[in-house]
């Protein structure tokens, strides 16, 4: 199955129809293992049991950035390679990314209350994640505000690429500004400094959430393809029922992804 084949929405639909159930099953299994490991992980000598929040907070935080990265790739696909599935992927990924970002924010605040004594602090990392969330919302608003998908796709692609500038800011904010938030202890030069007892469940949860993302993304992309098919069919229907008095009625509709 090459990339060229995937460019055809119909082929994509049939392929994902076969792959999705397996993917969902694997996700569920990995998630179950991850949850079991995090439940049995020892308490931290400093943070006590609250360290368990890490197992959901950190994967969500990572994914919030990863999803934007995926969307940036898709944006390149739209603008440079004009890949027909690229904007479908970008549009489908945005709400999922927003959800992960939201979870990173909320679990972070829930962890912050016992650790720092406050839910919210205008710290560089926290604020930059909040901005990431706002940018996700802005993108979703943009997708919703423009009904012609190809027009919205190109605008969203430009914006996604420009917004990718925020990713390094989030990643390095803790290094650039001295702040409350933990500096990187897993994804850093020189290897992780985290104890194995925490590292293993964390990585397992991270894998589970990544798989979850891929599964949800594929399912949402299927929906998006169907939605575009529906839109073009509805436009055809509007035309078919209209009278034929004017020259304008000879226009035909070009269905999305007609093979």
């Amino acid at each position, binding site marked *: 199955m090459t990339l060229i084949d995937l460019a055809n929405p*119909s082929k994509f*639909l*049939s392929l994902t*129809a076969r792959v999705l159930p397996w993917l969902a099953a694997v996700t569920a299994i990995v998630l179950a293992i991850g949850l079991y490991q995090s*439940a049995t992980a020892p*308490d931290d000598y400093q943070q*006590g*049991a*609250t360290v*368990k*929040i890490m197992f*959901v*907070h950190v994967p*969500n935080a990572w994914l919030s950035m990863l999803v934007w990265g995926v969307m940036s790739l898709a944006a390149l696909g739209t603008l440079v390679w004009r890949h027909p599935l690229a904007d479908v992927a970008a549009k489908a990924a945005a*709400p*999922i990314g927003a*959800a992960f970002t*939201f*979870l990173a924010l*909320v*679990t972070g605040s*829930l*962890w912050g*209350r*016992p650790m720092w004594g406050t839910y919210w602090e205008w710290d560089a990392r926290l604020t930059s994640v909040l901005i990431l969330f706002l940018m996700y919302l802005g993108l979703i608003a943009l997708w919703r505000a423009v009904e012609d998908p190809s027009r919205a796709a190109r605008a969203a692609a430009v914006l996604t690429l420009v917004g990718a500038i925020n990713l390094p800011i989030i990643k390095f904010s803790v290094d650039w500004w001295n702040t409350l938030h933990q500096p990187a202890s897993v994804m850093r030069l020189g290897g992780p400094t985290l104890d194995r007892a925490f590292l293993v469940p964390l990585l397992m949860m991270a894998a589970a959430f990544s798989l*979850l993302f891929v599964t*949800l993304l594929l*399912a*949402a992309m*299927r*929906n998006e393809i*169907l*939605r575009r*098919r*529906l839109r073009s*069919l*509805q436009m*055809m*229907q509007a035309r*078919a029922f209209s009278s034929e008095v004017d020259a304008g009625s000879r226009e*035909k509709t*070009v*269905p999305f992804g*007609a*093979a």
Partner: protein
Amino acid sequence: MSLGPYTSFIVASYALVTAVVLILIIAIAIDYRSLRQRLRELDQSGITRRSGRSAADLR
């Protein structure tokens, strides 16, 4: 398993993650169903894709 003085925070964060993930899954599933339904209705009203295949045909 005892979770110490901050049980509510830990439980809340896990519950929230579960809830949001479930909402995502359910939203996508509902969206899929309604799209399929509307495509099928269009199909019954005789509108077909230009390639001649049925609208509800997903392949």
